[in-house]
């Protein structure tokens, strides 16, 4: 029996068609994966289902009845629940407050907190979610935050649960326990829609898979009847090289050296502890770890955006510990930031202004910007890095994510750096762009530059890096040239290799 049926769903944003005539059926009690690359239209589709967007065309049937879901409120009433990729949690409130908001148990016109906590504990126990009702959200781990999200949905008696890329922020161990929870939910009669771009997960958890590409449904298949290779082909529309070819190379002199660096946050909370890293010429060093274990802090520390409390950072043998970002860049540091929209770009400025960002002083003569030189330089980068745009006067926020990232990478690789700090360089970009970015990183390695690659993608690290360091809770817990996926997973979760 189909609990949900999409019929001819179409949704456009301006000139972009996010969903085009989508037909899709979800069966009651199944785990159904929506598989596709970034930008394939998966999130748009479930946002329409959840009432966050309204479709331009098409109809949705819930349990056979056509439903006009125009607000999340309506969706919730229909028994839908969504666990968002970016958690919808208020950091400063308790888990219970987050869970009950909008549907509070009442007593004499006031919120009945005692009963609320009891209910939270009850559901938490039922599905082994282990959520502490009194904890403040900003103080709990990412995994626990996700379980709060699940609780929110269950508290509202949802029968259909939508998970939007739930594993992106989890360790392999946390993923395993999430899958246990999913199976428990399924056993309890819930229907689950699971969005992902990871083949392996799809194979492991789902009953059926629907593959989306460029806003269209390619096919829906039973998981047991397919293979990762077939799914991958449907996803990208051609055969994909899952491995990057990398030539063997001897590394040269040390370029970046981090010695015993420690960093503390609020209330003296250690963020980085005693970090030692060295990166040599012609070498890509990878930093692996689950998001939130100090990668961002490490990135910002190297870039000079944070002041460290102890230790030394050397670039080409020169101490740059106390140096500002500007000086570090002047000495040949390039930086591909993990959050391109927040850090790497000025979205409301035009392309040219973004292309000289960080290198602007080189285009300044007697205090004036050299417009012709900037124009020529920008054109060159746009061409070389295949940035698709209409003109130099376009604002960056008009570009797609992939093109934005190519702009950042093009900019950072064109300043003739000696050291490249690449943090999550392929986050949120499509497969084509990923390949392009990987090629460029290998190219720069060939030119004998040093690269520090901070990434959450294990594939990326294993195929690009010459050495991998694992970071866990602000410490480097392991360093080796080669790991298996399992080893990395254990280390990232804080386990020791036996």
């Amino acid at each position, binding site marked *: 029996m189909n609990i949900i049926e999409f019929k001819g769903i179409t949704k456009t944003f301006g000139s972009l068609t996010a969903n085009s005539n989508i037909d899709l059926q979800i069966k009651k009690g199944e785990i159904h994966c929506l598989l596709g690359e970034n930008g394939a239209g998966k999130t748009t589709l479930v946002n329409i289902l959840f009432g966050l967007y309204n479709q331009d065309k098409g109809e949705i049937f819930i349990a056979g009845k056509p439903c006009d879901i125009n607000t999340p409120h309506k969706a919730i009433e229909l028994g839908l629940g969504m666990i968002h990729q970016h958690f919808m949690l208020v950091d400063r409130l308790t888990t219970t407050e987050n869970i009950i908001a909008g549907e509070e148990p009442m007593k004499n016109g006031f919120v009945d907190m005692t009963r609320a906590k009891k209910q939270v504990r009850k559901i938490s126990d039922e599905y082994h979610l282990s959520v502490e009702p009194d904890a403040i959200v900003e103080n709990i781990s990412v995994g626990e935050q996700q379980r709060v999200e699940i609780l929110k949905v269950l508290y509202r008696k949802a029968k259909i649960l939508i998970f939007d890329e739930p594993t992106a922020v989890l360790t392999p161990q946390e993923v395993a326990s999430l899958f246990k929870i999913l199976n428990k939910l399924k056993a309890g009669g819930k229907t689950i829609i699971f969005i992902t771009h990871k083949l392996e997960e799809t194979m492991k958890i789902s009953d059926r898979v629907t593959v989306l590409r460029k806003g269209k449904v390619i096919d829906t298949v039973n998981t047991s009847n397919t293979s990762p290779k077939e799914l991958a082909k449907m996803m990208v529309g051609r055969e994909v090289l899952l491995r990057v070819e990398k030539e063997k190379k001897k590394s040269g002199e040390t370029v970046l050296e981090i010695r015993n660096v420690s960093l503390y946050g609020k209330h003296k909370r250690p963020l980085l502890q005693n970090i030692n890293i060295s990166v040599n010429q012609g070498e890509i060093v990878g930093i692996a770890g689950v998001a939130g274990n100090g990668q961002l802090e490490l990135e910002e520390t190297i870039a000079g955006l944070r002041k460290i409390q102890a230790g030394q950072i050397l670039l080409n043998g020169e101490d740059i510990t106390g140096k500002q970002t500007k000086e*570090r860049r002047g000495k040949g540091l390039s930086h591909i930031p993990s959050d391109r929209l927040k850090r790497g770009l000025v979205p*409301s400025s035009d392309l040219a202004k973004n292309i000289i960002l960080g290198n*602007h002083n080189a*285009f300044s003569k007697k205090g*004036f*910007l050299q417009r012709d030189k900037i124009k020529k330089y920008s054109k060159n980068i746009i061409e070389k890095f295949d940035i698709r745009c209409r003109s130099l006067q376009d604002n960056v926020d008009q570009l797609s994510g992939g093109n934005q990232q190519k702009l950042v990478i093009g900019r950072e690789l064109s300043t003739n750096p000696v050291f490249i700090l690449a943090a999550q360089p392929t986050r949120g970009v499509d497969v084509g762009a990923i390949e392009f970015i990987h090629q460029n990183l290998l190219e720069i390695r060939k030119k004998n530059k040093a690269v520090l690659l901070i990434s959450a993608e294990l594939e990326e690290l294993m195929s690009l890096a010459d050495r991998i360091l694992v970071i866990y809770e602000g410490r480097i817990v392991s360093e080796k040239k080669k790991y298996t996926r399992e080893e990395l997973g254990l280390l990232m979760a804080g386990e020791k290799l036996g």
Partner: protein
Amino acid sequence: MLKRLKKYSDLGYSLIAIILAFAIGALLIYLSGLNVGKAYSALFNGAFGSLFNFTQTLMNTIPLIFTGLAVAIGFKSGLFNIGGEGQMYLGAFVTAITAIYLSFLPSIILIPLVLLAGGLAGSAWSFIPGYLKTRTGAHEVVTTIMMNYIGILATSFLLLRYFQETGPIPQTVFIPESARLPELIEFSRLTWAIFIAVFVVILCDIFYKRTNLGYKIQTVGKNSSAAEYAGISSDKMMVLSMMISGFMAGLAGATIVMGVLHRFITNFSPGYGFTGIAVAVLGRNKPVGVLFAALLFGALQTGGITMQLFAKIPMDLMVVIQGLVILFVATPVLIKKLLRK
């Protein structure tokens, strides 16, 4: 081409906002039983009807150009400087004192020097909220408002205790002739300050479009995290931007003292600093936009006088219209909605 169109639509929105505000103003005049046509023709005549009236409009425009620039420049780095009034008082005061004490200098040195002193006094005053913002996060909106009160009290304190002309009036003696800006037309009080104002507008325009520093300040205003990532110190740029902003407000005070009042008097401003906010908003924080917005508000002020005298319409209607213009200009969405209907 698309960019062009966008530029024009910006201008279009501003025009529609102005028309809307005037339409509501007309409704108010009508509702209070007065003649709309008579009122608005008096308004127009008063502002542009004769050469003399036009000079008065320009005279009223000058301080608004500077205070408007002050607010716009703050906005460029993402800061909202409501402290123009206080900065202007400081600028006016220091201008008068410097001119009086350095009266032995020849005009050619004295005038630029005194202007600079007035501007710097404004800068000094705006430095404080800028510094506090970057250091402690104290919101500049509140601190600049407080600095207004403090600035006005401070100039009054200094004036009364140390620089008061003998007599019953809270004012300094006249500044020397050599420090006054020459009048363009006799008795008009329209001085060279108008050229200074236009020149400063052009300088600002070039500054933000062409210079590296202008680029850096705007980067901070648009995305301070990205600026930091690019090695631009957003703290430094914000404080600097605040100081340039204060410099402009200081110039407003300086040109009033050097061109109109020829001395410092307590309570001299009808709120130029606050009107500057409206000017900046209407001018969409662009220097050239500020120039035209200031002209509009200057004309409202001057024309309002004639309107009050000869059509018996209270000047406060002009304040109502100013308020409406700000509200409407702040909401392109509203105008878009109205246009669609």
